[in-house]
């Protein structure tokens, strides 16, 4: 379980997150929607300790984490994996070594076990036979999926996705959404998904939060959001409809 209490994050004189409070239950899929630059990535980075809040508290499994030191944060990052907005693959390592990286750092495993695990995780995102390629040699969509495999490989119980489907084609988008859904249902992974995509939020989210300028302007289940009168939410909703996509297709 993750709980935020009056989370405030500033950069210089600009306040990006203005006192956010909310909770995510175990096994839940929470979508965080919002326009670009409202601080969605900043929010996720606060959870994994890449950024630290200026005020407020973050509780992960009953532990307040925002004041932990970098070393104390390592175990948190083991159970709390993040998939970045960029593929963020290490360009000097092969795809195999990229996926194995977290396994080597977080666990001490024999080499053949690592090999099996890497192959499993790549298969999970429908990638086979590219282990020895360099990141620059594969397409952007493939890079994003390798990045997903790299995070999942560590078997975190909490997964944070920063725009996992932005820039992907519709087929891959569906596959990635399906994967997020499966992970959460089969492995009871808790997921926070940052996205612009109201359509897939409605399809797979348990709960949705809409952020605007660092504040929560709406939250609730997909059904509750559909009835929401906040202008920004209505914009998101109408876009989901305009795209000509039917709900619940996934």
């Amino acid at each position, binding site marked *: 379980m993750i709980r935020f209490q009056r989370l405030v994050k500033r950069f210089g004189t600009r306040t990006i997150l203005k006192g956010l409070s909310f909770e995510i239950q175990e096994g839940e899929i929470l979508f965080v929607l919002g326009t670009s630059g409202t601080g969605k990535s900043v929010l996720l*980075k606060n959870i*994994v*300790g*890449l950024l630290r809040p200026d005020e407020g508290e973050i509780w992960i499994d009953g532990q307040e984490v925002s004041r932990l030191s*970098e070393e104390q944060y*390592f175990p948190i*990052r*083991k159970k709390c*994996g*993040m998939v*970045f*907005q*960029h*593929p*963020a*693959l*290490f*360009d000097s390592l092969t795809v195999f070594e990229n996926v194995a*990286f*977290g396994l080597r*750092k*977080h666990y001490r495993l024999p080499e053949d076990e690592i090999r099996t695990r890497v192959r499993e995780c790549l298969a999970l995102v429908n990638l086979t036979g590219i282990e020895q390629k360099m990141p620059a040699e594969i397409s952007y969509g493939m890079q994003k999926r390798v*990045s997903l495999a*790299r*995070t999942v490989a*560590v078997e975190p119980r909490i997964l944070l996705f920063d725009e996992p489907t932005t820039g992907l084609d519709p087929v891959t988008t569906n596959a990635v959404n399906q994967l997020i859904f499966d992970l959460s249902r089969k492995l009871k992974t808790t997921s926070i998904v940052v996205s612009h995509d109201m359509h897939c939020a409605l399809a797979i989210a348990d709960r949705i939060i809409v952020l605007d300028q660092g504040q929560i302007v709406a939250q609730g289940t997909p059904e509750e959001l559909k009835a929401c009168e906040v202008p920004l939410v209505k914009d998101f909703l109408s876009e989901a409809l305009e795209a000509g996509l039917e709900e619940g297709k996934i």
Partner: protein
Amino acid sequence: MIAGFRAIVDDVGGGLLFLGQMFSTALHYRPKSHVVFDQIWKVTLNSLSTTALAGFFVGAIMTVQFTLQVKEFGALGYLGGLATSGTIREVGPLLIAFMLSGKVGAFTSAELGTMRVTEQIDAVRCLGANPFQEIILPRYIAIILSSFFLLAVGLFMSIAGGLLLGVVFSGITAEEYLRHIPTIVTLPSIVSGLFKCLVFALVLASICTYKGFTTTGGAKGVGRAVVATAVATMVGLVIADFVTTLIAEAILSMAMQA
């Protein structure tokens, strides 16, 4: 004006904190030696020809300059010694370090900056590793070692450049050119030249890793980081040159008195 001053103080302070973090990492973890050697190999190979060429021409220029001056006094015999001493102690390290800052410095800050803005550095931390240990420290060590080596090669080439111009331009024999080098270029002046090279290597490595590591703001940010690296390195080198000259002079005069 005051804001500008504060920005500079902030920058220097941030840089010192960065170095502190790197040294504390260095105390606790040893970077993998094969990664360090990879980096050394890359940096050296990338810049060897450029520095050798730069060194050669610095030596050549110095010889031409000195020729015009010593000729009046009929002291061409001292040309080799004077030109070499001036090159090794003063302009050689500085000019070659400028050259290196354009190559190694720009390359490193662009590489680290790209890793920063594409979230690779964040990913390293999230996957349970320390970016100082994995990324920064190997590069820092490699840049210092290879820059020092490259500067020394550049200085050596400057002697060759000076010698060639001494023969071609000033019309003295190689033997004449070389004769007074050992008498004027004393061991202390070689040491002070190499000391400068070491300090310059430190300045170069510190600034480009710091600027690259702290890049923000996407692809434009990488561009800004590279420019900031170039400017800060040039200024840093000139200041370091001034300071090391003072130190070297002080030590030399102490050695003379003793």
